[in-house]
């Protein structure tokens, strides 16, 4: 196994090559993506923390099993997010009837960006903004929630989102536009509850 210092300087694609030589090096991929993917799972699903950890574990096992399928034309992050996206959607469909068990996780920086994007703070109290956005996001269909999370929370560009959800860029653009409309509607409903 190669030392952590050396690996930190290596690209994802280089680490993939090292994983094929020694499975212990897979730990560096896990370490690099664990937090990001976990947050992504929690944002687009309503899984509890424990369920999200199980899904996360499955995702990394699938990444390991399919590592020879990684195409270096893609960004490794897009590829791992794609696996995560598919795994969450599969699990979500299987457990569609579950009750809502988690709130939507948003850090403060993101709140500000979203508040600006959707003109929220003009009308409601800053302290309530996080709750309003979270509740509105949780009301959305998973495909709209997913694409908004990728765009505004994971900060992926159109090409990356296209590679993650395996849809053409035009579809990504129109779905983002539709998702924003849906979020605006949901935000309006939430505002009326508060005001």
């Amino acid at each position, binding site marked *: 196994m190669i030392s952590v210092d050396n690996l930190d300087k290596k690209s994802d694609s280089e680490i993939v090559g090292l994983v094929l030589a020694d499975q212990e090096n897979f730990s560096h991929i896990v370490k690099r993506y664990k937090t990001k993917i976990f947050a992504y799972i929690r944002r687009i699903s309503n899984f509890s923390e424990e369920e999200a950890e199980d899904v996360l574990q499955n995702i990394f096992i699938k990444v*390991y099993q399919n590592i020879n399928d990684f195409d270096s034309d893609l960004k490794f992050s897009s590829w791992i997010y794609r696996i995560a996206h598919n795994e969450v959607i599969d699990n979500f469909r299987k457990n569609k009837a579950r009750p809502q068990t988690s709130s939507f996780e948003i850090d403060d920086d993101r709140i500000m960006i979203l508040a600006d994007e959707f003109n929220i703070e003009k009308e409601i109290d800053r302290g309530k903004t996080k709750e309003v956005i979270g509740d509105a996001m949780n009301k959305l269909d998973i495909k709209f929630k997913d694409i908004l999370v990728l765009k505004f929370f994971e900060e992926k560009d159109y090409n990356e989102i296209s590679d993650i959800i395996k849809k053409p860029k035009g579809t990504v653009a129109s779905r983002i536009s539709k998702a924003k409309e849906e979020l605006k509607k949901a935000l309006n409903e939430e505002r009326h509850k508060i005001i």
Partner: protein
Amino acid sequence: MIEDKKFIQEILGKIKKENIAPKPKWFFLLKNYAVWSLGFLSLIIGGAAFSVVIYLVRYNDWDVYEQLDENFVSFILLTMPYFWILFLALFIYIVLYDIKHTKKGYRYSLPVILTGNIAVSMVLGVLFYKIGVSQALDDILGEKAPLYSQIINRQMDYWSQPEDGRLSGLVVDIVSGEKFILVDLSQKEWNVNKGADGVIVGIKLGAPIRVLGKKISEDIFEADVILPPGKPGGGLFRRHQKMRFPDPDRQNMMKEVIMSRPIFEGEEKMAEIIKKYPDLQEQLSKVRNEEFNIGGDCNEDIDCGLPFDYAVRSNCLFEAKCFEDKCRVACLEAQNPAGCDKKEDCACEFYAMEDKKDCDCLDGRCGAIVE
């Protein structure tokens, strides 16, 4: 959230405990090749389907339809190749599905893939049509496929509607210039008579035809117009010809036997044929020895028969003769029936040229014994 170290240990532990290994690269390459191969194959099949659509539409009796008691729209609706259009649509869908499942197929929008797919299918279809793939496909399916006329080529069904004045099938007997027997595609026999203003021309025994006219009764049809069969559906007619005249092997065998002329080519040829086809021994012996009695004892010419093969030949006036108490086939000179006394009286160069036989003065007539 679970801490990094513990989570990593759990993952690596699971990988080791369950012996999880990365799937080999060849597995993904094979999958990729399989997807592309299926797509390519589907594209070819779609192209072939389109070529048959062109073929069936091109030969859809556009020049005949005016004689049919049908308006243009219903003629089109009744004869369109729906099966092939659906087949084409199915394979266009398969190609679409396949391209979407290639590694980068998702990057292209549905209209782009669909347009490209249809364009390639059309180009392939025209190419296949030009090189005769469509006709070959139609012929093979006509000969082999069940429900061909009901589903695959509706034009055949359209021409099998005696109630509506359309009949097609094989001519199995020509009774006279105004009447013949036709067996339709359901193997039903029809007595076809010339209609009041009709003309019966261009019919041949065993050949397929189409008839426009009127159904008179359950097995009588009055013909106004006789048409040759359309180009599509040739295979279906061949299938019916085989049903009507089964056992082509036996037909070929008989053809070979007749062509080799064992009865007339001597014992060696006869033995060769009988060795090859032992079943024919009795039949050939009967033909040779009993029916024509060639080589057999006789008292006069009437005891001998002229084999059919000689009777139809036009290069000589063949006759079965009782010569020196044995039945013979002789080629007698027609020009000098008055007779001869000796060989020199005969124009023997004629025989030398025709049958390479020596001639002689036989019972007072010039001729040569050929059998």
